[in-house]
């Protein structure tokens, strides 16, 4: 081929250009330390990098959440230890109260006031602008100290829980502690007010709080279809099982006893809707769900918005009088389930059958049946003392059984002397006597010679009913038989244990010099302390979990970064060599080019 001058010139020029371009590329790679700087460098790897970048930025957000949680956990830990310390001090003061000189008692009151003030400060601790015990209402102080040293919890029921945060992709949780979890316990206690004239014993089956479902509160809606739960008396766990049974194998349902909330997990492969807003979804209230529909994606969970096990009872003596004797002559009480806004009609106080002369257990058509080996045993209707009812049970059970009533525990015991195993079907829906006799709705299998002892106190429920219902939630309340008489307006409470209320009550008792009250309620301090310890363990667990998640996150971040760097990072040594070689060639080319340009026809003539 004929090589013209301009051809040669252009060839040189394009070579120099492309080499210059390559040099610029390498320079860019070296300066950015990346071999991929634009999508066009490698579209596939660039796309993958976009995904990695997104993972990394989300991971950074999770880490921020977790770091904050770690700080919070530290603060919670200090706070809970402080609560425990203060309760321990209270315990010491209460234990030594009787032996303390009267002049020292005022200093006890002062110290308790100090403790209450200190704990309110603890409850209103802030991290930045956030009240750490404010739950979702984190911008205003959760606790208010009143003039009488009572403390008001200022957070609305729906906003109590700690805020939900993401700590990992698809790991959403309530991390942190709400004021209610820290300063209140889900353990119910029964106590008489310090100012009461009555200083006798009170009895309550506070641990037997139950969820009672009936025709009016047993329907939930799933994907627009009604799901009917079986009417009955349930503990949190058994109700969770019942919900699971009704929803089917595609769901798992759990009961969280520390928050008394139900957690439903959707194990189907698609999203499901719980139609809590449906007017027919009558179970929403009992299960603690707001009337807002929830769409739950596959694998996700739906948790109660509210704690429905918080039911508290205030009992007020309507007309004073004796605690024992014929029902007509006894003191009367009314109760309130809404903090004292509305009160029931007055009814006679009960001893749970412990009064040996006059009975106060009423057996009628609503509560006269229990089941043995699947066959109904019907008690004769009437009003019984505990011992009288035991005799009646024995009569109806026939030979081979002995039934006893223990006035100190208010419990029945049925001893099987038949020589063979017997089953008492307390779970049978027809076993209407279970409640009044004090048996949980669980079947008892009793071998010969053994005794089926009541799970809780015998007698009538707090609303005077003989069967557990949605009003009394299976709570009973009874008075001692050998005690002083009740005075009108004496008040008693059955409610969740509150640290502040406990402290205030003790302060009042110290102030009034009511050593009987102090000695009767000293046990609640231990309950509060163990609740505080338990909460502290929950917090510690959250801390450990946060640490673990932070580690996991870091490890994952490192892996992604490593992988990303393998994909995009430039090998500087190699690039350096390439650069040198290219540069040399480039310079040679340039030299040749300039020489070529200086060649004229005259060069040929020399």
């Amino acid at each position, binding site marked *: 081929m004929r*090589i013209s001058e*301009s051809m040669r010139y252009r060839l040189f020029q394009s070579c120099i250009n492309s080499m210059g371009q390559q040099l610029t590329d390498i320079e860019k790679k070296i300066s950015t330390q990346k071999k991929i700087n634009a*999508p066009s460098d490698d579209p596939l790897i660039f796309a993958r990098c976009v995904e990695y970048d997104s993972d990394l930025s989300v991971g950074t957000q999770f880490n921020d959440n977790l770091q904050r949680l770690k700080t919070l956990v530290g603060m919670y830990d200090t706070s809970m230890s402080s609560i425990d310390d203060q309760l321990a001090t209270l315990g010491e003061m209460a234990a030594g109260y009787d032996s303390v000189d009267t002049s020292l008692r005022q200093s006890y009151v002062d110290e308790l006031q100090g403790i209450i003030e200190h704990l309110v400060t603890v409850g209103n601790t802030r991290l930045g602008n956030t009240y750490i015990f404010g739950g979702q209402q984190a911008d205003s102080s959760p606790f208010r100290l009143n003039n009488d040293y009572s403390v008001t919890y200022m957070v609305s029921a729906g906003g109590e829980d700690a805020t939900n945060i993401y700590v990992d992709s698809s790991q959403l949780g309530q991390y942190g502690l709400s004021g209610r979890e820290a300063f209140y316990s889900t353990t119910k206690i029964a106590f008489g007010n310090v100012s009461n004239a009555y200083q006798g014993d009170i009895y309550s089956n506070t641990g037997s709080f139950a969820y009672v479902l009936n025709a009016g509160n047993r329907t939930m809606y799933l994907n627009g279809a009604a799901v009917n739960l079986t009417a009955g008396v349930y503990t949190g766990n058994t109700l969770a099982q019942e919900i699971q049974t009704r929803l089917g194998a595609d769901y798992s349902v759990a009961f969280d006893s520390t928050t008394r909330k139900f957690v439903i997990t959707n194990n189907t492969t698609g999203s499901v809707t719980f139609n809590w807003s449906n007017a027919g979804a009558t179970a929403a209230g009992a299960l603690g769900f707001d009337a807002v529909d929830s769409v739950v994606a596959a694998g996700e969970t739906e948790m109660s918005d509210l704690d429905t096990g918080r039911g508290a009872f205030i009992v007020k003596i309507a007309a004073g009088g004796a605690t024992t004797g014929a029902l007509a002559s006894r003191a009367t009480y009314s109760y309130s389930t809404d903090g004292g806004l509305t009160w029931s009609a007055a009814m006679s106080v009960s001893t749970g059958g412990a009064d040996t002369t006059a009975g106060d257990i009423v057996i009628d058509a609503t509560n006269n049946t229990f089941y043995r080996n699947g066959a109904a045993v019907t008690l004769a209707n009437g009003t019984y003392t505990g011992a009288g009812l035991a005799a009646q049970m024995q009569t109806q059970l026939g030979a081979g059984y002995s039934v006893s009533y223990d006035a100190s525990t208010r419990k029945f015991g049925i001893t099987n002397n038949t020589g063979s195993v017997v089953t008492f079907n307390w779970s049978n829906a027809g076993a209407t006597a279970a409640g009044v006799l004090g048996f949980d709705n669980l079947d008892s299998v009793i071998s010969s010679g053994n005794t089926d002892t009541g799970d809780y106190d015998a007698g009538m429920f707090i609303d005077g009913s003989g069967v557990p219902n949605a009003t009394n939630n299976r709570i009973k309340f009874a008075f001692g038989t050998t005690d002083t008489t009740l005075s009108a307006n004496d008040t008693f409470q059955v409610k969740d244990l509150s640290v502040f209320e406990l402290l205030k009550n003790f302060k009042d008792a110290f102030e009034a010099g009511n050593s009987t009250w102090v000695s009767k309620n000293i046990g609640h301090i231990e309950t509060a302390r163990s609740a505080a310890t338990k909460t502290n363990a929950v917090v510690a667990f959250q801390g450990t979990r946060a640490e673990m998640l932070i580690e996991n996150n870091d490890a994952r971040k490192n892996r992604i970064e490593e992988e990303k760097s393998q994909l995009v990072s430039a090998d500087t040594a190699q690039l350096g060599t390439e650069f040198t070689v290219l540069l040399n060639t480039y310079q040679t080319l340039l030299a040749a080019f300039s020489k070529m340009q200086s060649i004229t026809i005259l060069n040929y003539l020399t």
Partner: protein
Amino acid sequence: MTEVNAIHGTGYNPGGTTGVNFFENLTRDYAANLDISDEIKADVNYIAVTSSASNLSGNDIALAIADLGTADVTIGGTTTTYVSYSASIASTIGNLSQNAQNLSEYHQNLLDMVSNQRESVSGVSIDEEMSNLIKFQYAYQAAARLINVADTLMSALIGIGR
């Protein structure tokens, strides 16, 4: 934007108001005009984070918006996530750009080849010109020499004639 607004619009802000958009509603030029809605620009308390009018302290709407990051969405008839979608956009742009570069290079080469062909026909090659120059120089010298010889011969002939 639409998805965020759809979720945000159902939420309640601390004042109990609902139905407020987070982003301005746009019908075209989305990327150029993307903006936060006027209400929120005026007062951040318009940001709605809870789905319940009765409980204004929840944060489920904020969480639902966070969920969008990994949620399946349908864009242009394809079910994807935002991350995958933006990755695919980057990848598509990269591909297009790479293709354009390759094509441009290819056409440049074609052009070069054709213009080389043209040059080989019409261009000036210094080697050829040089060889021609030498060739013609020698031819000229040869011709000059011939004339010289002829001149000498003529001179001799004229001398004889005298």
